[in-house]
């Protein structure tokens, strides 16, 4: 059963304890795949799938896995799910697979997944771990989508490939290039964390 505590954990992963905004994890892919909302959405769905299922599997095996090989086993589980996502995209969404390039494979190295496996799934029951994985993935996806929204709109003048800004508007080329992800992410982190900071100073 899902307890109140875990509902709180689920919501915290989305915002207050967001893996990207607060824990600053998974930055590499945040910077790499956020200039186009379509790619970003697929990437986020892929990550939700991988974090959810790998946390579930790690949790299912937690009592059987010897401590000294647990990290090898975690990486094996994560890598297997990532390869599944990659193979699925190659077979059924080849266009998107090509534009995401190596970044799907690099989900393996995304610290969020390993982080959740170690910090949560290793010591919680399977259902809670699954939810924790999913919510961390969604938390990551939300930040990705926010960044991609700004970058695609200003860089290409479109959202999900649909032109929204008039043709006469100048596209900000910098928004398409990787550096802009730093600016946009930093701005989002700043805006998102200001309220937390005030609260902690108030104490």
């Amino acid at each position, binding site marked *: 059963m899902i307890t109140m505590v875990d509902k709180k954990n689920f919501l915290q992963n989305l915002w207050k304890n967001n893996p990207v905004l607060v824990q600053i994890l998974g930055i590499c892919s945040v910077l790499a795949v956020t200039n186009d909302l379509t790619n970003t959405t697929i990437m986020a769905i892929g990550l939700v799938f991988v974090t959810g299922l790998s946390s579930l599997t790690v949790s299912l095996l937690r009592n059987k896995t*010897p401590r000294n090989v647990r990290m090898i086993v975690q990486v094996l589980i994560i890598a297997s799910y990532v390869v599944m996502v990659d*193979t699925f995209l190659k*077979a059924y969404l080849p266009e998107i697979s090509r534009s995401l390039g190596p970044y799907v494979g690099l989900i393996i190295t995304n610290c969020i997944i390993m982080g959740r496996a170690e910090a949560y799934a290793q010591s919680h029951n399977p259902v809670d771990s699954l939810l924790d994985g999913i919510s961390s993935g969604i938390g990551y996806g939300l930040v990705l989508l926010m960044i991609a929204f700004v970058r695609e709109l200003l860089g290409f003048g479109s959202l999900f490939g649909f032109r929204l800004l008039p043709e006469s508007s100048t596209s900000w080329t910098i928004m398409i290039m990787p550096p802009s992800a730093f600016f946009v992410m930093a701005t989002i982190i700043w805006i998102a964390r200001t309220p937390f900071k005030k609260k902690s100073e108030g104490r």
Partner: protein
Amino acid sequence: MSPRVYGIFYTFVVSAIFVALLAFLNAATRNRIIENEEIRLQTSILLAMGMLHPDDMPQRDMISSIFSESVRTIEYSDGSIYLKENDQDRVIAFLVSSPGLWGTITAVVAVNESYERLVGIEFYEHSETPGLGGRIDGLDFKNQFRGLLISEDPSARISVVRFEEDASKERSSIAAITGATRTSESIQELINRAINNILPEIAEVLGDNNGR
């Protein structure tokens, strides 16, 4: 069982299970992935030959049948030649690769029967900057190659000019992509390579004398 042996045994069993799972998935999707690649190449060839239009793309399954009905493939030592032949004309297409800004650009280049004009170009693979050099995928850019006269000058089979109004198909010139000078230069190099290095070989294979 000692903990150390158990650890090794456990890792081995878990690995075997996951590897088996992936092997199964691979076997289930392999044919489709190969087919996807084939269709992508066929689509590029048909687009370069002007037989498909990006705004009016047929279903995935239709592309293979259009391709096999209308295009003949001739394999030779250095690659493949794709021929579209009918009573009036013949279009010759082939793949050519050349360095781009970030990585290799591979394109399908199609030329007409007399080897004098380009029929079209389609970029098959490239890693140019999205939104800058990546705009070589745009129709505006690619349409400049339709019917473009190939220059006699081997060092510049096509020339790249700065402004759109200076570009002329009869003078073998195309307008560069603003903000992507290096990519535009790479495209010139790619066409030079296609016409100077690959086309003569193809002409020889086809038994034509007019390959330059």
